[in-house]
């Protein structure tokens, strides 16, 4: 068995451990300046001459320590500020040069070979309705030709709500403020069960949510689509939550509902649109026939995809608000 070394506390490993634990090693110890107990010092420095020498040494050490401690506030700060200014100027200049170089590489405006003048936009406008079956060209573009981009966009929303969840969620078992406390704090500046708000919400919320559902379902026929409709539904849910409180909304919307709806919607979207990956990315238009343009049940996959996006957006909006309010759903 190995013996514990005499200077065990001074080994590099112990110092690292102290550093990680955040135990501040005193400056005196680091300078090799022995900190002694009162009893010991009395015993050692009985002798008068000894004491004089001791005091001298102590003074020297004290001045050294004070210099060492003041360094970051006096000279250190100056050095830091100089380096900081230099580095910020350097980074600024580098970025400006890089951006200017990129601008110089761009094709000239108005040139015939400019990427804007390609056949893609013309094809979207001329053949869009025929190929996708959507009267709303925008919906045909973002949910058929470029559905894969929109898949990424809806994942961005999902990730955003996950980040808010990480930052603002209050753990029921953790220390600090609990969910109940947060809910109580939340109500300090506003009346509970406001009669006017409840009366207005009773008539407005159904209309708002119905309009949202209409916008989602008619995404391929009229202006709008998954994102707009989802945002409207989310706003309606937030109004309902404001008027009636968390008790009423928790009957139909909890964290479990949020995760189930998001996962099902995003999973369906991913499954229905990643098949182009497996077919070599050349089979981009739908297998389902477009149907008669203008009918509700037409345009192939656009209607179900709109519903998916709408559900994800509505859940995200609501969960943002719920997390901001009380740190949980």
């Amino acid at each position, binding site marked *: 068995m190995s013996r514990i070394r005499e200077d065990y506390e001074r080994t590099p490993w112990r110092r690292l451990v102290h550093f990680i634990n955040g135990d501040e090693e005193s400056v005196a110890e680091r300078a090799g300046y022995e900190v002694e107990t009162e009893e010991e010092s009395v015993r050692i420095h009985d002798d008068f001459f000894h004491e004089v020498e001791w005091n001298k040494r102590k003074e020297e050490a004290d001045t050294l320590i004070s210099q060492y401690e003041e360094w970051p506030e006096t000279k250190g700060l100056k050095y830091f500020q100089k380096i900081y200014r230099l580095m910020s100027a350097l980074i600024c200049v580098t970025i400006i040069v890089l951006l200017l170089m990129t601008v110089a590489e761009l094709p000239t405006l108005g040139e015939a070979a400019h990427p804007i003048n390609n056949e893609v936009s013309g094809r979207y406008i001329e053949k869009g309705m025929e190929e996708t079956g959507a009267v709303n060209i925008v919906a045909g573009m973002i949910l058929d030709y470029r559905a894969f981009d929109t898949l990424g966009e809806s994942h961005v929303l999902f990730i955003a709500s996950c980040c808010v969840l990480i930052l603002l969620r209050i753990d029921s078992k953790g220390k600090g403020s609990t969910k109940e406390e947060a809910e109580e704090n939340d109500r300090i500046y506003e009346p509970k069960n406001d009669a006017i708000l409840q009366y207005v919400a009773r008539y407005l919320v159904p209309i708002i949510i119905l309009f949202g559902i209409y916008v989602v379902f008619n995404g391929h026929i009229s202006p709008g689509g998954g994102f*707009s409709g989802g945002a409207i539904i989310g*706003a309606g849910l937030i109004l309902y939550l404001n008027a009636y409180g968390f008790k009423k909304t928790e009957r139909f919307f909890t964290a479990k509902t949020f995760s189930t709806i998001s996962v099902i919607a995003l999973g369906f979207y991913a499954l229905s649109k990643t098949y182009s990956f497996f077919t070599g990315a050349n089979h981009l238009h739908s297998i389902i026939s477009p149907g008669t343009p203008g009918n509700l049940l037409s345009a192939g996959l656009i209607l179900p995809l709109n519903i998916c996006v709408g559900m994800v957006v509505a859940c995200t909006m609501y969960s943002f608000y719920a997390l901001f309010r009380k740190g949980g759903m």
Partner: protein
Amino acid sequence: MEFLKLLLFVVLITCAIYVCVAKNLLTSIVVFMAYSVVMSIIWVIIESPDLAITEAAVGAGVTSVLFFVTLKKIHAMDDRKEEKNEQD
């Protein structure tokens, strides 16, 4: 119609500048809300109603509400109340 457009643009720019200049955070949020409403009307005028719907729902609705909640969380609205109580 031209006059209305011009008026809307002037209001839009005024709102945008005022949001940055306003000293009170609550005021700047309310002005930001007004900015979103004006912007959504402009979207309708330049014939993109889908963007108008989104702007009205997200810009004027959800974003402002989230800003209000954040103000309450960081207790930026308390000071006003305390001042009022002191005046009373």
